[in-house]
């Protein structure tokens, strides 16, 4: 049986100054692969992972050393090497976001799928890693649907969307007012747009910066002087400026609420020092959340995610056990055994429920067995001559020896 191995350099094992130096591309991996080996690399801001079969670990370490310029000792100290079941489990954990810095985050799955596309284009993966990655994606999907790990948003933008949905329902019809055009505001606005916000208005002291962000996000830049008027139309306000004094006062909000006829407004103030006067939150139908309030929600959500992660781990165990069983079946010996078992099942099926004269049943069984053996002789000879995973997988597929294929066939 082929073993899947993995070298992982991640946020738990290595500091950022090492992590940022290490990047492994599929083109480079291809250089060390032969016809029976496979490899897959994943690079994100928090981790670099290399999975492979049929390679020597020293070879992979050498490649990483060469690409990163790190010394061998440093690299080994900053990475973890996993093999067999442990590496499969780790792959599934990574895909599901259970090994991420932000527990249960979904971005990693998208990054992994992108990396897989690159691997397919470079031709570095084959039967085993293809199957392992598909299984990992499947486990991640199951975790998302069967546990509540994704129901507890932990980013500011997700919080804003969540709060807005509790108040307005869908956010598509609401106007989002972004005050400030810095990184934080930009990220939050982008997430809001990705979550369905259509009407984005950006206010910034430097109008040119607001215009740039507006162009990037498909919104409208508004002069800073119009901030008070914008509060009348904005339903979700995200503010993150570097101002040392509040730029949105209670009076401004009260005046806006009057003109809004008390239509609810959510103000998310992620600036430190705060951009919005605390008293503004006392205005009728104004929902004000500052960074501390958001942090309190995030902390509670993390606690919930951790409890959901326990359920997720049992799904990981189940899926990795299934994959392990499939991997085990990828040996010529096991496949030949399965072919004979299939033959026995067919013979029993044909003879069952029929009555035969004395002694004829045994004769017929012998005849059937001989015929089946003749028929199976060719695939068995083929397996013995081509013991590679790919050919074993072909035979297993042709004879529907795995549950998956049988199910698909029935379906």
């Amino acid at each position, binding site marked *: 049986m082929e073993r899947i191995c993995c070298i992982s350099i991640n946020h738990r094992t290595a500091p950022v100054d090492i992590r940022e130096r290490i990047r492994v591309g599929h083109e480079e991996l291809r250089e060390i692969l032969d016809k029976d080996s496979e490899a897959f690399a994943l690079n994100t801001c928090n981790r670099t992972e290399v999975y492979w079969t049929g390679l020597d670990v020293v070879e992979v370490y050498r490649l990483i050393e060469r690409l990163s310029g790190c010394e061998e000792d440093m690299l080994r100290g900053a990475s973890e090497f996993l093999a067999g079941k442990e590496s499969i489990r780790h792959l599934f954990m990574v895909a599901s976001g259970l090994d991420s810095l932000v527990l249960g985050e979904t971005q990693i799955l998208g990054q992994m799928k992108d990396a897989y596309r690159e691997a397919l284009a470079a031709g570095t993966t084959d039967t085993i890693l293809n199957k392992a990655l598909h299984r990992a994606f499947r486990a991640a999907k199951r975790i998302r649907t069967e546990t509540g790990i994704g129901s*507890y948003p932990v980013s500011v933008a997700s919080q804003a969307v*969540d*709060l807005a*949905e*509790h*108040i*307005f*329902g869908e956010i598509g019809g609401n106007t989002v007012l972004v005050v400030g055009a810095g990184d934080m505001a930009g990220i939050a606005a982008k997430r809001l747009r990705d979550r369905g916000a259509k009407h984005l208005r950006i206010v910034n002291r430097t109008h040119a910066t607001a215009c740039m962000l507006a162009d990037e996000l498909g919104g409208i830049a508004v002069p800073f002087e119009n901030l008070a008027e914008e509060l009348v139309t904005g339903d979700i306000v995200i503010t993150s400026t570097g101002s040392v004094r509040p730029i949105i006062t209670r009076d401004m909000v009260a005046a806006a609420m*009057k003109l*809004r*006829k*008390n*239509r*609810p407004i959510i103000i998310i103030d992620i600036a430190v020092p705060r951009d919005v006067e605390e008293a503004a939150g006392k205005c*009728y*139908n104004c*929902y004000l*959340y500052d960074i501390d*309030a*958001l942090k*309190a*929600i995030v902390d*509670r*959500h993390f606690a*919930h995610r951790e409890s959901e992660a326990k359920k997720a781990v049992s799904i990981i165990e189940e899926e990795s056990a299934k994959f392990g069983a499939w991997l085990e079946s990828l040996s010529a010996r096991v496949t030949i055994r399965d072919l004979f078992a299939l033959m026995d099942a067919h013979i029993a099926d044909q003879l069952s429920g029929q009555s035969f004269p004395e002694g004829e049943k045994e004769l017929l069984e012998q005849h059937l067995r001989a015929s089946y053996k003749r028929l199976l002789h060719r695939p068995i000879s083929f397996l013995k001559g081509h013991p590679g995973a790919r050919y074993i997988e072909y035979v297993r597929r042709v004879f529907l020896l795995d549950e998956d294929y049988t199910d698909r066939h029935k379906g």
Partner: protein
Amino acid sequence: MTITAAFILYTLTGLGFITYLFLRTDTFLFGLRTLYCLCIAVHGLSFSILWQASGQLPVATPTEALNMLILFSSLAFIPFIFKRKTAILAAFFLPAASIVLAFIAPSLQAGSEVLSGPHRTWYVLHTLSVIAGEAFFVVAAIASTVYLIHERIIRKGSIHLKLSHLPPLTMLDGILYGSLALGFFSITTGMILGGLWASAEGIAFSSIAPKVLAGALLWAVFGLSLHQRFAIGWKGRRTAIITLIGFVLMVLLFVGINAAFPESHGIRLI
């Protein structure tokens, strides 16, 4: 017998909807909606049996009126039950309906009191209209309660709670406004019909004064709530609080007046 079956169904469905607060699956919701329709069917059947047995629309006594109010309220909730986001309102309505049914079911007997008088049709129309209005106020009161709970959850930032899967505030406010407007229209119609009936029957105002005054007070409270909404944009919490105050007032007046002045409407009961 059928009213007992209706009570059991209301209770079971209510418990089901409370469970739905925590166990949100489409199949479960489908089952609950089916049960809800069954509740109304069985309750409707019990109502029609009572009607047939007494030979008149069963609204002559306070218990009969309450029975009809629950049936009308259940009907008024149907559009919300079949909307995914608002179906959960039933978790707040059905337990209350079950409790009221438990109290009135033993005293619901056919033909206990018979309406008479040459213009009783006016009276029946007046009662139907008022009860329909009250049913809309029940919807408004439930929407107000849910609004206040959900708003508190949002303000405290406890949106991670399973209970926080309540309808969005603006949607609840819309339900509140719609049911207040419909209720106000029905009550107004009912009051006009009541006036026509009293005048046709030649009933002295003094004999119906307590109920007329109580009705006028309620009408004024709900009218004020609607007026403030249009005039100064009272939306959300304030409207919800006024509605709940009005609803509690309605319940207290109903119980108090029927206990203190059992025949204050001057209807002749044989």
